């Protein structure tokens, strides 16, 4: 009697565990589809012919995949130029932010001076600063300085990349042992020499992380780019080009080409993110959780 009951509860427990497992993997599958499907859909759509693209109902898989959309996007001067502009802008922003941010991070992380805490708070507050709040004023500054669109984008993107860079690098410099700096100073190095030859090489991992995040943010930016290139269309970046994408001939929105463009600009970023995922996660969580 009792033996049978024990067996029954055991069987029930096993069944429960099996259903638990099944439900768990089902959840994983649902999440995976949710996270990846839109990108899959863009890729599949980019491989379809124009006729298949507008056929109803939509097909899940291209019947005869063609590369025509990719070819026409890569032959589109405006898009290729936008890729160049975006690369130039995003890399310049990244390098400048790292340069300016590293020296500031060194000062804030390793030196003692009046107003250190206040400076940190002011810079941190900047990360919350809405871009739209400076848009009109920034435009006035740029007109005053007579800056063309590309350098003005480079300068203005530092509004969101610089505070983050300073913040993360400060906490990184703080984490480096003081003895390093002291040893360098004992050896007769000035503060700047110690920075260049001793501390900076040690921050390489943090520089890679923050640099990647700054690059992605700059690559992504749309509000400033859209506004500053209104009078200078050749300086359009990738997001603006994709937002305003029109086909060469078709009057209808050329979604096949748009999806091809979407895939082209996303794949490098996805690869970059996947390669550096550990570091990116560390950087994001350091920037946010610590903030």
């Amino acid at each position, binding site marked *: 009697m009792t033996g049978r009951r024990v067996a029954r509860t055991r069987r029930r427990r096993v069944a429960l565990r099996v259903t638990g497992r099944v439900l768990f993997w089902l959840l994983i599958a649902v999440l995976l589809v949710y996270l990846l499907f*839109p990108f899959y859909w863009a890729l599949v759509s980019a491989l379809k012919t124009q006729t298949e693209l507008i056929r109803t109902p939509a097909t899940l898989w291209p019947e005869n995949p063609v590369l025509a959309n990719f070819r026409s996007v890569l032959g589109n001067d405006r898009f290729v130029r936008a890729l160049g502009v975006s690369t130039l802008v995003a890399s310049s922003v990244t390098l400048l932010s790292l340069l300016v941010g590293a020296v500031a991070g060194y000062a804030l992380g390793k030196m003692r001076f009046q107003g250190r805490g206040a400076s940190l708070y002011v810079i941190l507050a900047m990360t919350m600063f809405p*871009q739209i709040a400076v848009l009109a004023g920034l435009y006035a500054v740029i007109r005053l300085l007579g800056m063309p669109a590309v350098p003005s984008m480079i300068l203005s993107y530092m509004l969101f990349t610089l505070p983050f860079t300073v913040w993360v690098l400060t906490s990184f410099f703080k984490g480096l042992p003081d003895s390093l700096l002291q040893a360098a100073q004992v050896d007769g190095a000035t503060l700047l020499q110690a920075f260049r030859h001793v501390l900076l090489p040690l921050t390489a991992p943090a520089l890679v992380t923050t640099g990647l995040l700054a690059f992605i943010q700059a690559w992504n930016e749309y509000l400033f780019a859209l506004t500053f290139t209104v009078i200078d269309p050749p300086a359009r970046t990738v*997001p603006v080009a994709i937002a305003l994408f029109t086909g060469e001939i078709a009057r209808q929105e050329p979604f096949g080409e748009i999806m091809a463009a979407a895939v082209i600009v996303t794949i490098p970023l996805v690869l970059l993110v996947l390669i550096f995922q550990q570091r990116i996660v560390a950087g994001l969580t350091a920037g946010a959780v610590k903030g």
Partner: protein
Amino acid sequence: MQDAPEAPTPPAALPLDGEGGGGRGRPKKNGVSRLMRLERRTAYLLLLPTFLVLAVIAAYPFGQVVYSSLTDAKFASSQPTSFVGLDNYRTLFAMTIRRLPPKLDESGAPVLVDGKVRYESAVSVLPRSPRRYRQVFQFGLLGHRYVLGAVSADFVRAVWDTVVFTVVAVALETILGMIIALTLSSEFRGRGAMRAAMLVPWAVITVVSARIWEWMLQPTRAGLFNALGSYLGLSEGRTDFFGNPTLQLPSMIMMDVWKTTPFMALLLLAGLATIPAEYAEAAKVDGAGPLRRFFRITLPLLTPTLAVALIFRTLDSLRVFDIFQVVLGNQRYSMASFAQDMLISRRDMGLSSAASVTIFVIIFVFALLYVRSMKVDT
């Protein structure tokens, strides 16, 4: 990153004063104070570029925006501008609530359609001069019907829409992000691959994701959702997600949730990693079920992380621009896309600046509320 040790201990040989210490009049050896002064001067020098850049791209432009919000400045024009005080703000906030009278037929009885009272159109009750008020929305209260009218109906609607968008999107992201984070925090094969997959939406450019979703939500069965809807017999496959006003916001929210959930999940995952597994183990031994363990142990310990994630996402979401501008253009605005459109399309720099200042204030208030209510010190 690593836990930085709190304020590095000053080396014994250099009794440096702390922040704001001043240290004037204290007897000090000449060499020491010279070193200190050198360190201080170097620090200021190193911080100079950062503050210079921030002054040029943040402080000065913001001052300029606040100033032009009080003028009738036109964008990209050489017209002389004049000071107009709070006129722009009055234009933005001029609102009125009027009661809508029911429609009456010749005999003076209310017109009924399907048993429901018909009301006069909003235009007939809203003031037309000196400024024209337009309808923002109608609502029923205590058996009467009212209309909210505003001079800048688009702006009032944009504020309302952005707040609704933010509240719903952030709530959904939090729930979904929590589910993903909890799933990923358990051990299973392929966890690394799953985490990599999670980063994909985050890596897609917002504008690109907007266009991908725009394509999936096409109003014909060439669009994925309409094809699915008609296949499952839910719709006729002609649902216009971006043309139909009631579906616009939900579509925007759906797009935003897909794109930003990974960020939320990442932060929560990092927070979960800091909770010692022994707590949950102990509770399990005591016979607490998974739900109880989550609400009694995991959630309270996760609160600081959750608070920071919520602040980041809420503030980010309140300044949403990309997806509204790309998908809805000037059909319907978010706060930021309204301000940008006023600046570029209407060239009304004064009004746009006033809207920008308002957005700034709204975001600031949200930040303050969060910090106060969650007692997080940022």
